[in-house]
């Protein structure tokens, strides 16, 4: 055998295009013996094209190199490439109906994989074919069957046996678990894992769970470009490219707990600049002009002008005392662009104070608040255009003397944005966004004419009318009954999906936090005791206090809808403070 490292598959600047449009652009990969890499992405991202290119099946025009033992597979004469196929580089195809020849039995088809390479005498190949089929769980009788007599799972096993026939060095798995039931899928993954351990394996799939269980490294392909690459576990736990995060968020599995979210928009191959820029919520000018280059940080490769998902809000060492009592001690948190961070803790843990400090309602004794990498000292109009807050009780943040129109328009008036008509149009748009009627009759209503859910929606519309980047939501649903609570949460997630809104979600309810957040921070007596991805915090809490909260949450789940017991300073103060944080200018009114 070849010593590890001596042989490796290296793909350099691979470009494949059909009829002038690029299906793959500048793909670079290096794989050594024992490496297993997953290529994930939506359908149409170019995953299969990559697999076929390595097999020498590219139909379009190609440039770049696919190097194997000093030979460029792309430039190899067809006859030489043929002698490598199935012998050195083999592919396990998806078990589609016609993946196997319908008129030959599967034993003969597996055997053929050996006889075409004159791999020993015929009877030896025959015996080995039976052995291989046996190893993937197909007995003698099944082996003599024709494809139409087998189930999807059995066909998949046969395809695996065929790919393993010559003990290839490179194994490409193309959607190896698609259309299999979960038990069969588990079996097939086990077989593949065992088979791939001493080879170079490349798993091409849109199924993240399959990718996760079959690979050590992972590359995310978007519109023919690799946008992120790193160790599978890290990448899934902590996606750094906006697209990767979106992909993982939209995939249903057992380890993410947040409700599914999609990525708005569609894939666009022809886009200039960063291929993802039309769908990206943190794009800047340069994104549409220049394609980003691949940068490596801590073993993670990311192609993004902004180095991946940017931190929007940073709290550094926040400490605050009221009199003798220290409410917050040395709390540091980061909210990334487009994510939801839930701050969870029981009443009096300091979470509301944290929200108030962030928005500027009170100042910390020590520590800094950074927004978009700038330390905030005075918060001006600019800041309040980007950061808004909604409260637990909408009645307290909505003045009962103002109509819906006035309430939602007020932030625009304060910010002096647009003319009268534009403002009104923005108001209607904001009401549409929160799924409220935007007709004149509704606009003329007063808060006391609204239901609790409607009032909270108006409050959200009021916060969203400025199209902020960060929304601080302080127990936004705990005053509402369960069904309206669910709707409001859904609404907030929709807004996040559409706008890439970041959220700082303050709640006492861990069950709720689990559903809406990407990450959870647990506060206990003013100290940050635990922080991590929502799924991890919920499934394997590290701190005893978190475990205690979890038990409570389980009980609370049963009686959901009981109003929160928050007795923070924010509640009473909210109404008075309202005008202050809408804008500094308001203070002078």
């Amino acid at each position: 055998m070849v010593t590890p490292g001596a042989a490796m598959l290296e793909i350099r600047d691979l470009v494949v295009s059909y009829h002038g449009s690029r299906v793959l652009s500048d793909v670079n990969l290096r794989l050594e013996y024992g490496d297993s890499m997953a290529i994930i992405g939506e359908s149409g991202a170019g995953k299969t094209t990559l697999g076929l290119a390595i097999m020498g099946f590219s139909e379009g025009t190609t440039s770049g190199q696919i190097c194997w033992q000093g030979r460029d597979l792309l430039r190899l004469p067809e006859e030489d490439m043929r002698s490598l196929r199935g012998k050195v580089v083999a592919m396990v195809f998806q078990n589609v109906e016609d993946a196997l020849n319908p008129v030959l039995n599967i034993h003969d088809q597996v055997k053929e994989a050996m006889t075409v390479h004159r791999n020993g005498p015929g009877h030896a190949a025959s015996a080995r074919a039976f052995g291989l089929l046996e190893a993937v769980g197909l007995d003698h009788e099944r082996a003599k069957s024709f494809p139409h007599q087998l189930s999807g799972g059995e066909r998949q096993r046969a395809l695996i046996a065929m790919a393993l026939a010559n003990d290839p060095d490179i194994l490409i798995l193309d959607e190896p678990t698609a259309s299999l039931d979960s038990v069969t899928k588990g079996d097939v993954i086990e077989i593949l894992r065992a088979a791939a351990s001493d080879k170079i394996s490349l798993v091409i799939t849109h199924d993240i769970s399959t990718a996760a269980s079959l690979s050590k490294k992972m590359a995310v392909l978007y519109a023919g470009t690799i946008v992120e690459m790193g160790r599978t576990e890290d990448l899934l736990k902590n996606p750094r490219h906006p697209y990767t995060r979106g992909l993982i968020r939209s995939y249903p599995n057992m380890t993410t707990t947040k409700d599914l979210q999609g990525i708005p928009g569609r894939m666009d191959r022809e886009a200039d600049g960063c291929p993802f820029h039309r769908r990206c919520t943190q794009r800047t000018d340069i994104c549409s002009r220049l394609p980003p280059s691949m940068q490596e940080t801590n073993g993670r490769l990311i192609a993004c002008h902004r180095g991946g998902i940017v931190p929007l809000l940073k709290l550094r060492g926040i400490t605050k005392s009221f009199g003798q009592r220290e409410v917050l001690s040395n709390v540091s948190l980061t909210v990334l662009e487009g994510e939801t961070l839930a701050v969870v803790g029981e009443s009096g843990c300091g979470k509301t104070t944290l929200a108030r400090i962030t928005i500027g309602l009170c100042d910390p004794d020590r520590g800094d608040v950074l927004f978009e990498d700038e330390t905030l000292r005075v918060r001006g109009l600019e800041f309040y255009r980007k950061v808004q807050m909604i409260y637990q009780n909408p009645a307290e943040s909505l003045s009962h003397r103002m109509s819906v129109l006035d309430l939602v328009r007020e932030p625009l008036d304060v910010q002096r944005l647009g003319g009268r008509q534009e403002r009104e149009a923005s108001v209607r748009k904001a009401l549409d966004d929160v799924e409220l009627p935007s007709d004149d009759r509704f606009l003329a209503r007063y808060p006391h004419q609204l239901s609790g859910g409607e009032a909270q929606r108006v409050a959200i519309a009021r916060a969203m009318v400025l199209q902020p980047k960060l929304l601080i939501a302080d127990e936004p649903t705990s005053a509402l009954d369960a069904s309206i609570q669910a709707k409001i949460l859904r609404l907030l997630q929709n807004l996040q999906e559409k706008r890439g809104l970041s959220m700082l979600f303050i709640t006492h309810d861990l069950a709720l936090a689990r559903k809406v957040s990407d990450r959870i921070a647990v506060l206990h007596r003013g100290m940050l005791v635990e922080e991590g991805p929502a799924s991890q915090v919920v499934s394997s809490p590290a701190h005893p206090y978190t475990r205690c909260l979890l038990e409570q949450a389980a009980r609370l789940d049963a009686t959901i809808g009981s109003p929160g017991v928050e007795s923070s300073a924010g509640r009473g103060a909210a109404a008075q403070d309202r005008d202050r944080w809408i804008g500094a200018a308001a203070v002078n009114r």
Partner: protein
Amino acid sequence: MSAKRSVRGSLANYLLALIAIFSLNFVLPRMMPGDPLQAIYGQEALVAMTPQMEAALIQKFSLDQPWSSQLYAYISGLFEGDLGYSYYFRDQVSAVILGALPWTLILTGSALILATSLGIVLGMESGYRRGGSLDRGLIAGLIFISGFPDFFVGIVLLLIFGVSLGIAPLYGSITPYSGETGLAYLLDILHHLALPLASLVLVQLGAVYLLTRNTMVVVLKERFVLTARAKGCTDRAVRYRHAGRNSLLPVITATGIRLPQLITGALFIEIVFSYPGVGLLLSTALDARDYPLIQGILLLVTVAVLTANCGVDLLYRRLDPRVRHAR
């Protein structure tokens, strides 16, 4: 189990069809108005008949007996290979037909084999090189030729090679009275066979070729072709073992359907080339209104078509496991 049952089922179907044909042959003349003997033998034969012969015939067919005895006489006659007496040739119909049959078998049999195998090979190669010059040339040429009726192609070939160039005989299946034996005899047969065979093959070829080619083009897009290439199969193996074998299936079915057409084609060709087969015999019998002979030939042709179809069915079963092991 079930596979065997379905084989038996289709054999039973063929048997039923056969019985139906024989029954019709029995019932029809007897249902015609007037004298059944006249219906069976025709006006002219009757005129030429002596009263003794007539009496003998009535006795033979049990025409004076009830239907059941007539049926018995008919069936036992069939089993003895008795198809009646040909007045024109003054011989047993079965003997007359047997004399012509070998020539027809040689002609249609070799035409069938040649047209089918050539059509399949050309179709596979052409489909594999879809859009290439071979493909385009073959499509144009074969569609052009197969547009003409068989006898027309026969006449053209006869005029060119027989009359103008003089390199092929103008009629017959052997050179009369040459008394050749062995290899020379065989070559003489082939020499006479060449033109009629060529015209039949040329016309039949187009359909087989086109069907194979088009099937091949479709099959080549199926996933198992990629699977085959991915395991390193050579071009040849992909073309014949994988794509080719799967393209064969519809061609085999179509062959069964094409048989009657081939036989009518042969009939005309035999007339054009005065080739002494069953076709020429039929034309003579029609001219002479030799009804027993006509009936005998038609019976033979139907039985031949049915048998051939049955054979095609069995072949298909061998080639397609999905039919063989129907779930």
